C-alpha cells in the first residue's frame, strides 16, 4: 500500500451477492462517493487508489488497462449519478443516448431501446424517444439514467444518491423500479445515500461510513433495530419520524477531514461513550451482536440503548387575532400562475408548517410574505396591517419584525464579510441601537444559537454548513422579529445537523413566543417542530389543520399519498 498523501478512504471491505443491495450511508465528507466511484475503477481528480481490490465475478477491476476498463464500464459495472439533469447530454435525444450505450457494447440496438425503456416504466413511443432531456421531468430523467445503467445487463450497479432531487412520490416509484430490476436480473447493487430512511426500506445490508472508514456493517434489520456503533446510533437518533413527535438528537461537532484524523478513533471527539483509549488506539473491526463494528467499546455498549424523548405536547394554537393572515393570495412568475387564492392564518406563538412537493408554490408563498416576490394580488395582513407587495415598499419596522431564513446557508452569507460584520449590518440597518448595544446584542444572540464569540471574526467559508445556518438564524434573531419564516432551512444539511438546527428553532420559537412559518418538503420534520400544518399542491391548499390531524388522519387523498410515500425508518426499535 504505497501511500502518498492523506488517506481519504481506508480499509473499506464489503461483498455484495448477485441480486442483493448494499446501502452505503454516511454524512457528506465520509467518503461514500469516493468508494462508489472506486467500484468502477474511477477516482475524482487529485485522488489515487493506492491499494486493495475490486473483484467483480473474480476479476480485479483495478488491474485492468484503461481500454479493458472502458469495455467493462457500462456493460458489467454501471453507474447511476446523483443528478440526472447534468448526467444526460442536453443536446442528444433520449433514444440516441440509450442507443449509444447499447452500441458501445455491441448489443443489438434496435429493439432493445424500447425494451429497456419499458423496464423502467417509460413509454417507448417514438415521440418519447425523440425528446431531449430538458423535456422530461426529474423522475423521467432519472428513469432514463436507470435505463442506460441496466441496458447491458450489468453484474454490478452503483447508485449514487439517485433520488436526492426527487419528490417523495417519484422517489418511491424510482426506488421500486430499482429494486425490481435488481431482483429480476440478479444484479448486485450498491446504493449510496445519506438518507437512512430510504436505505432502510430498500437494501438488505448496510455499511455505515465515517471519516473514510466503514464503522459498522451488517444486515439492515440488525443495524437499524439495534445499532451498536455510537455514530450509527447518533445517525438513527437524528432521523425525524412522520409518525411520532420526538426530540431529534443531533451529533455535536464535526467530522475530521482527511489528513487531520488522529491516531485513535476518528469519532472519539464526538462520542458519548468514549474512554481515554479511544483517542490513542485505532479500533479494529470486531464482531458484536451479529455485525462487524469498528469500535473499541463495541462489546461493552452493545446492550445500552438510547432512549428517545417525546416532544412535550405543544400548547394549542391560541384563538383570537392572527399574527399573520393571508387572504386570497394569487402569485405569478411572468405569466405562469404559481399560487391561486391561498388563505391561511398563523396564530401568535405558533409554528405553521407549509409542506408540499417541489413546484407546489410553498417557497413562493414564503417569499410573498417576506417581500422578496412582489408579483401577487390578494391581502397579507401582518398584525392587523396589510403588507406592501415588495420589500422596497415596506418600512424598516415591518422588515425588522418579519425575518426570513434562506434555504442555502452557503449563499445567504456574504463570503467577503466576517460573521460580526454580517450580524452588525443587520442591526445597524434595522435597529436603532448604538454601537455598544449592538455588540452586546451580538454576543447574546450568538449564545442563543450555541456559537462562541470567536466566530465574530471568522469568515463564512471557515464555517461548516450547520454553523453557517446558525449564523443565519442569529442574524434573524438579532433584531427581535415577531414572525420567523424558515424556508427549507435544513435541506442543504446533513441529517445529524438537521436535527440540531430543528431543535434549536423549536427551542427559540417556544422561548421567544415567535410566530413561525416552517417550509419543508420533508413531512417527517413537521411533527418535531410545528403545531399546525398546511399542505400545498399545485399552488392550492390541499389540506390544513393541526399537525395531529393532518399527519395522523389525513383526509385529503393527496396528503394520504404523501404520508404513504414518505420514506420511514424501518426495523427501528422504537416503542
Amino acid at each position, binding site marked *: 500500500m504505497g501511500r502518498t498523501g492523506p488517506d481519504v478512504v481506508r480499509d473499506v471491505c464489503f461483498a455484495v451477492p448477485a441480486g442483493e443491495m448494499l446501502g452505503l450511508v454516511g454524512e457528506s465528507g465520509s467518503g461514500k462517493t469516493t468508494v462508489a466511484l472506486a467500484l468502477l475503477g474511477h477516482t475524482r481528480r487529485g*485522488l489515487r*487508489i493506492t491499494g486493495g481490490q475490486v473483484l467483480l465475478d473474480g476479476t480485479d477491476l483495478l488491474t485492468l488497462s484503461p481500454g479493458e476498463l472502458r469495455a467493462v464500464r457500462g456493460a458489467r459495472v454501471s453507474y447511476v449519478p446523483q443528478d440526472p439533469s447534468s448526467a444526460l447530454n442536453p443536446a442528444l435525444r433520449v433514444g440516441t443516448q440509450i442507443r449509444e450505450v447499447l452500441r458501445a457494447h455491441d448489443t443489438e440496438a434496435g429493439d432493445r431501446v424500447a425494451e429497456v425503456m419499458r423496464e423502467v416504466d417509460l413509454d417507448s413511443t417514438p415521440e418519447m424517444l425523440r425528446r431531449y432531456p430538458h423535456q422530461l421531468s426529474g423522475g423521467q430523467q432519472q428513469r432514463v439514467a436507470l435505463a442506460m445503467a441496466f441496458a447491458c445487463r450489468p453484474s454490478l450497479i452503483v447508485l449514487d444518491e439517485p433520488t436526492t432531487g426527487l419528490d417523495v412520490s417519484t422517489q418511491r416509484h424510482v426506488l421500486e423500479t430499482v429494486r425490481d430490476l435488481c431482483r429480476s436480473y440478479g444484479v448486485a447493487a450498491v446504493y449510496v445515500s445519506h438518507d437512512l430512511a430510504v436505505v432502510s426500506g430498500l437494501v438488505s445490508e448496510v455499511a455505515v461510513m465515517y471519516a473514510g472508514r466503514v464503522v459498522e456493517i451488517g444486515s439492515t434489520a440488525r443495524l437499524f433495530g439495534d445499532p451498536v456503533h455510537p455514530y450509527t446510533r447518533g445517525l438513527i437518533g437524528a432521523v425525524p419520524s412522520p409518525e411520532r413527535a420526538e426530540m431529534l438528537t443531533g451529533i455535536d461537532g464535526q467530522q475530521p477531514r482527511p489528513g487531520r484524523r488522529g491516531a485513535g478513533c476518528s469519532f472519539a471527539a464526538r462520542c458519548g461513550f468514549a474512554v481515554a483509549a479511544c483517542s490513542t488506539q485505532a479500533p479494529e473491526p470486531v464482531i458484536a451482536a451479529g455485525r462487524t463494528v469498528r469500535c473499541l467499546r463495541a462489546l461493552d455498549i452493545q446492550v445500552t440503548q438510547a432512549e428517545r424523548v417525546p416532544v412535550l405536547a405543544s400548547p394549542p394554537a391560541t384563538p383570537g387575532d392572527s399574527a399573520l393572515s393571508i387572504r386570497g393570495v394569487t402569485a405569478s412568475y411572468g405569466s405562469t400562475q404559481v399560487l391561486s387564492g391561498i388563505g391561511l392564518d398563523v396564530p401568535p406563538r405558533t409554528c405553521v408548517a407549509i409542506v408540499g412537493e417541489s413546484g407546489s408554490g410553498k417557497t413562493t408563498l414564503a417569499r410573498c410574505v417576506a417581500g*422578496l416576490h412582489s408579483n401577487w394580488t390578494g391581502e397579507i395582513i401582518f398584525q392587523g396591517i396589510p403588507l406592501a407587495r415588495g420589500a422596497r415598499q415596506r418600512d424598516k419596522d415591518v422588515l425588522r419584525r418579519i425575518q426570513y431564513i434562506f434555504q442555502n446557508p452557503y449563499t445567504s452569507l456574504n463570503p467577503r*464579510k466576517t460573521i460580526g460584520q454580517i450580524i452588525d449590518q443587520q442591526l445597524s440597518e434595522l435597529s436603532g441601537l448604538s454601537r455598544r448595544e449592538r455588540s452586546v446584542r451580538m454576543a447574546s444572540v450568538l449564545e442563543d444559537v450555541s456559537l462562541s464569540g470567536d466566530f465574530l471574526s471568522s*469568515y463564512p467559508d471557515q464555517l461548516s454548513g450547520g454553523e453557517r445556518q446558525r449564523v443565519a438564524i442569529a442574524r434573524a434573531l438579532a433584531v427581535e422579529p415577531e414572525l420567523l419564516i424558515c424556508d427549507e432551512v435544513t435541506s442543504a444539511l446533513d441529517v445529524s445537523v438537521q436535527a440540531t438546527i430543528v431543535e434549536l428553532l423549536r427551542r427559540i420559537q417556544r422561548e421567544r413566543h415567535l410566530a413561525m412559518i416552517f417550509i419543508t418538503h420533508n413531512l417527517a420534520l413537521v411533527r418535531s417542530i410545528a403545531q399546525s400544518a398546511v399542505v400545498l399542491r399545485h399552488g392550492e391548499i390541499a389540506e390544513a389543520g393541526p399537525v395531529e390531524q393532518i399527519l395522523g388522519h389525513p383526509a385529503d387523498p393527496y396528503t394520504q399519498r404523501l404520508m404513504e410515500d414518505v420514506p420511514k425508518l424501518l426495523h427501528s426499535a422504537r416503542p
Partner: protein
Amino acid sequence: MTVSAPVSHRRPAQRVRRHQSGSVLWSAVRTPRGAIGLVLTLFVVLVAVIGPFVAPNPPVALLTVDFGKPSAQFWLGSDVLGRDVLSRVLNGGWTLLIMAVCATALGIIGGAAAGIAAAYLRGASDGIIMRAVDVILAFPQLVFALLLLSLLGPKLWLITLAVGVSHAPQVARVLRSATLDVSERDFVKAAELQGMRPAKVMRKEILPNLVSPLMVEAGLRMTYSILIIAGLAFLGFGPQPPAANWGVMINENREGLALNPWAVVAPALLIALLTIGMNTFTDAFARVAIGVDRRPEQAALIEDIA
C-alpha cells in the same frame, strides 16, 4: 480498498482564503507565470519612472549626427535629429504610463459602474445601459479615439478620456455577467430585506465579490491602454515633438531603421515587454482567482481532498 490524495508540494491555490484578495495577488506572484510577468512589468515601470533622473543627456538636445550608430558616448546611438536615443527612451515612458493608468482607471470605474448597475437593476436600466454600450462597441477602439480627437483636437487629457471611454463598454460587459451571477445569491436578497437602497447593495454587498474579475479586467485594459496610447502617439496624437515619447519615437525614427535600428527597437521593445508582462501577470492572477472563487461548497470539497 484505500484511496489517497497525493501530496502536493506546491501550495494549492484553493487553500487561499477567498476573502483576502491580497493573498490571491500574492499567490499569483508566486506562480512562475506571475513572477515573470511581474518582473517584466516592474522593469519597464522602473525604466519609465527613474529614467528622467538618470538620463545622461537632455532628451531634446541636438548632440550629434542623425542616426549615429551606438557608441561609448551614446549607448543606443542617435535619432533623426541627432538626439541621444538612450536619454529619449529614459524620458519617454512616464507620460505614456501615467496616461495609460488614468485611462484604465477611468474605463474600469465607468465600465464597472455601468455593468454592475445594468445587471443588478435589470429591466429598463439594463436595456438602456447595454444598448449604449453596444453603440460604443460598434466602433473599433482606435477609431473611436481618433474620432473624438479629430473633433476636439489632440490634447493629452482628451486622449486619456477617449481611451478610457473606449474601454468602458468592454469592462461593462464583463462586469455585467459577473454581477448577474453574484446578485442571484441569497445574501443580496438578505440585504434587500434589510431595506438597503440599491446603490448601497451594489457597493457594499456585490462589489466586494467582484474584486477578482475587476483586477483581471484592470490588467487587461492596462495592456490595451498602453497599446492604444502608444499607437495614437505614433499617429501624431499625443505629446507633440520635440517631447520624448516611445510612440512618437517609433514614428519619427522609422525612416532611419537601417542606419540606427535602436532608435525604433528600444522604445518598441519596452512597449512590448510592458504589455507582455502585464498580460502574463494578469493571466496568472486570473488562474489563481478562478481556483479560489468557486462556489464555497465546491471550495470546501476541494479543500477536503487537497
